[in-house]
């Protein structure tokens, strides 16, 4: 079987469900009936968990958004790229985002780091610096290798995500219902920026949807 490449970022005007390999939103709370059958641009403006995150980041005055893509974050990355108040910063590896957060905070700006769970292991030593410096770090991690995973190579890092983040001093908070993503990220942002701590929100694969290899 040919292993599918990472889900490409969809063109701005395609519908949400049209993203290849994305079957999420089944468990979405309010608005789920829109998202799961979305066929128009209108549906994109209705409530969905990536939109909820975008609103939370806007309200929290987050300016720098470092990311290594994940299909689960595709919608949010689109929203960030279209938002003049935020700077979308594609990274080559997640640890760059940890260092970026230090620089942003030194300069008086808030940042967020978007990644999938396989990226958590890539940043551990850099997070040691963030910890030592008590720089607030908000990271939103979409889980792979967890709920209905097909790819066995995703499972080890997925299972190591919580213990490794916790070991380096990150406060880890999980969310497994789409309707609770927004409030969880809002609470995590408040915790991170008000207490100068590293906080990770792990968004369950149950919310994101398992990648389809077909």
């Amino acid at each position, binding site marked *: 079987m040919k292993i599918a490449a990472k889900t490409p970022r969809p063109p701005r005007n395609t519908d949400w469900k049209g993203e290849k390999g994305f079957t999420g939103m089944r468990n979405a709370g309010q608005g789920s009936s829109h998202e799961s059958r979305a066929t128009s641009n209108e549906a994109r403006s209705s409530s969905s968990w990536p939109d909820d995150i975008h609103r939370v980041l806007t309200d929290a005055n987050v300016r*720098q958004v470092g990311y290594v893509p994940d299909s689960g974050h595709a919608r949010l990355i689109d929203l960030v790229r279209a938002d003049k108040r935020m*700077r979308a910063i594609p990274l080559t590896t997640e*640890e760059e985002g*940890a*260092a970026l957060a*230090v620089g942003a905070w030194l300069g008086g700006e808030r940042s967020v780091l978007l990644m999938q769970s396989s990226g958590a292991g890539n940043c551990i030593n850099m997070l*040691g*610096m963030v910890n030592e410096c008590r720089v607030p770090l908000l990271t939103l991690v979409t889980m792979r290798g967890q709920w209905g995973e097909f790819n066995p190579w995703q499972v080890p890092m997925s299972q190591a995500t919580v213990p490794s983040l916790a070991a380096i001093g990150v406060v880890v908070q999980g969310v497994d219902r789409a309707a609770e993503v927004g409030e969880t990220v809002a609470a995590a942002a408040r915790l991170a920026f008000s207490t100068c701590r590293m906080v990770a929100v792990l968004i369950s694969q149950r919310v994101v949807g398992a990648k389809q290899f077909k």
Partner: protein
Amino acid sequence: MANKKPTLERRKVVADILEHRGDALVVAGLGAPTWDTAAAGDHALNFYTWGGMGGAAMIGLGLALAQPKRRVLVITGDGELLMGLGSLATIAVQQPRNLAVIVIDNEHYGETGMQPTHTRYGVDLPAMARAAGFRSAGTVYTSPQLKTWIPRFYRQPGPMFCSIKVTTEDAPLVLPVRDGTAIKNRFRVALLGISEAYK
């Protein structure tokens, strides 16, 4: 691969650069560049790193984007930069006009037993920066060259990259404050003011 033999002395190079710092913000890479930066004169707007190897250039990027009106100098080592080579690509995509990445390149891992780094074998960091999309990049071997580059570090539109070849001669340890939280807070208070820094 034969390299030209470096003649510049790292402590003097960094002192010469920082003599002209004005209101610039400085990020120092772990190891000798942090000692060099401290030796040039402690400053609240120095962010000394003692860890997080490979992160100095990305700290510089975050800072440069947050403070577009201030010049940001990253002063780091060849080994430190080699650990974060991807950051050259990430910085180039953002094109921060106020960022200069300066590598004090002694072609060795000085803190761990002087093993040769990749630059000793001819890896050309400025060529990599240029290929990534830095606006300018070059290598400095001599004092006259350094003299022409120093004003560029502060004025030429970035992102710019310079590798300054220095000898492996030991310089006395000059250790700045090492509590990371203290370094961060001092920097933020100096840059943002105390009420904003602790908001």
